[in-house]
């Protein structure tokens, strides 16, 4: 096998740029994809280092006792985006909330991708009763009215499970319900790829099933999955915001959805508590959506010039 690899390498160099290099060039030329990458990078930076810029601790009711509750934005520069009735500083809270939303978005997606890849790979690579059953389960999951089930799940979990778990509950719930798209696409891609010549070549060279699946097929499946994962992060953040906004989330952890829920209570008088966290959500979700769209353009060989 190593002989074949070393023989193939100089040949590849003659052919010019590798797959990844071509994709990177296409990605770089796509302005909106770059914008998406920059936004996502900024979002990750804020999630990790935002706590150092935040003037007040997470869920701190500082202003309630210090006479600065319900301040409008851009008036007092100690509270640039204003404060809530309850005395929470909106700017600090947005910075603290970033980590929660990133955690939910990314970790739930990771769970979904892991589950979806395994189920999709099995359903695509093998044939028979088990894979037919997996396909059936995937299709059933597609049709479920997922959000109401997630909401009920979150509400019951709120009561039964210790509050200390916080966002992890939501992460697990979203992860459990997010895998069907990944599984479906993985299965389709594997059905297509496993008949291609390079897989047959590997098989005739005596490669084992698992080697073919992991080294040859899964690597090729990854590009549509990366695209889907990016869009799924966006979707998960939106769902987390809805769960928290409706009051089914974790009441002690800073998230943008929780801030929006509190803002809605006083929306008639304190519009700023609703406006600014919403903008934060839109920017973060937009970043992942732009990134996903851009990756999809860059990685799709069918529309390559």
């Amino acid at each position, binding site marked *: 096998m190593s002989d074949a690899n070393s023989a193939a390498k100089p040949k590849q160099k003659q052919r010019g740029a590798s797959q990844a290099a071509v994709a990177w060039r296409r990605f770089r030329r796509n302005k*909106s994809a770059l914008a998406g990458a920059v936004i996502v990078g900024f979002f990750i930076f804020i999630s990790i280092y935002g706590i150092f810029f935040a003037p007040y601790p997470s869920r701190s009711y500082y202003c309630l006792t210090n006479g600065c509750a319900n301040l409008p934005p851009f008036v007092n520069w100690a509270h640039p985006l204003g404060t809530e009735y309850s005395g929470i500083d909106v700017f600090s809270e947005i910075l603290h909330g970033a980590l929660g939303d990133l955690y939910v978005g990314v970790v739930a997606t990771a769970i979904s991708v892991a589950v979806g890849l395994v189920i999709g790979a099995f359903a695509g690579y093998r044939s028979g009763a088990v894979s037919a059953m997996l396909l*059936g389960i995937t*299709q*059933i999951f*597609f*049709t*479920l*009215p*997922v*959000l*109401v*089930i997630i*909401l*009920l*799940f979150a*509400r*019951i979990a709120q*009561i*039964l499970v210790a509050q200390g778990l916080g966002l992890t509950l939501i992460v697990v719930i979203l992860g459990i319900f997010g895998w069907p798209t990944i599984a479906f696409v993985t299965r389709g891609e594997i059905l297509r790829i496993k008949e291609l010549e390079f897989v047959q070549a590997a098989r005739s060279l005596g490669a084992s099933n698992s080697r073919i699946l992991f080294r040859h097929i899964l690597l090729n499946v990854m590009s549509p999955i990366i695209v889907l994962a990016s869009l799924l992060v*966006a979707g998960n953040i*939106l769902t987390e*915001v*809805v769960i928290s*906004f*409706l*009051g*089914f989330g974790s009441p002690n952890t800073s998230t943008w959805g929780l801030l*929006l829920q509190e*803002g*809605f209570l006083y*929306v*008639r008088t304190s*519009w700023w508590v*609703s*406006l600014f966290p*919403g903008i934060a*959500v*839109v920017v973060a*979700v*937009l970043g992942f*959506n*732009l990134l996903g*769209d851009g990756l999809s353009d860059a990685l799709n060989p069918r529309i390559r010039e």
Partner: protein
Amino acid sequence: MGSLLNYVIRRALFAIPVFLAVSILTFLITNAAGDPVNIVRLGIRSITAAQLEQLRLFFHTNEPVYIRYFYWLSDFLRGNLGQSLYTGSVASRIIPWIGTTLELQIPALLLALGIGIPIGVYSAKHQYSKGDYTITTAAIFGISMPTFWIGIMLIIVFSYYLPWLPAYGAYSAYPPYWWGSPFLDAIAHLILPLSVLTLVSVATITRLTRVNMLEVLRQDYILAGRASGLSEWKVTYKHALKNAITPVLTIVGLSFGTLLAGAPALETTFSWPGLGFAFVRAASTLDLPTVQAIIMIITLMVLAANILTDLAYAFLDPRVRIT
């Protein structure tokens, strides 16, 4: 025709496992603590002994879990949705909720199709033009915003800052009516939530139409049509759109569930008395019989939408009818 019937029956049969899956999931979640009565007692401190007794009867808590499930399912299938913990029979209350939700969802869907498809076609026809960039940018913003948040923003602007439209409810219960009459009053209440829902769906439909049109416009038969001297209008709308629209309608039909699922947050924002708002209230107050009934009804609505979509698909795409 026989094969079409066959196809529809096959698709309709698929509804059964979905229905059962939802019922099992819902039932398992509400029985996660072994006994739904425990959940209610833990969550709602002010619950009375009479309410708990009623709940025990509804769930048959003296039986083991798997027996309870069949009691509940057979009750549901016979139209006995149980008693709400707070306000009488669930079945009598759920029907107006369905109506109010559809009053919002169906016009939004039709409007969104009517607006989104032409915009998507325009965008695809003028790919990489300024108009196309504007449209795709607006559309990606549209799918990145939480639906309910757009609603809150519109309420702040058009209801509080400019007192033009009502901020909550589907109608005024008593005079003074908005714009003078009860009918116009209902319209006034509909405008804001309907605009939000339409806006978000237009974004999705525009993106879908654009992608599918781009794919179709590249194909040979479009070139052949142009070469044989058909007008650009005819090529676009008669030949290309006809093929591009099938996947759009399919996805829209199948994602009716997602639309409905977006309802809880949006309906709560506008206090719109539909299924979604009722669901949120019932889940917050742990009114489990109501919650279960709403989830099952939403599932039935989604399944009905899917079967209608399959029918439309068989109609639009002759290949389905042949095989």
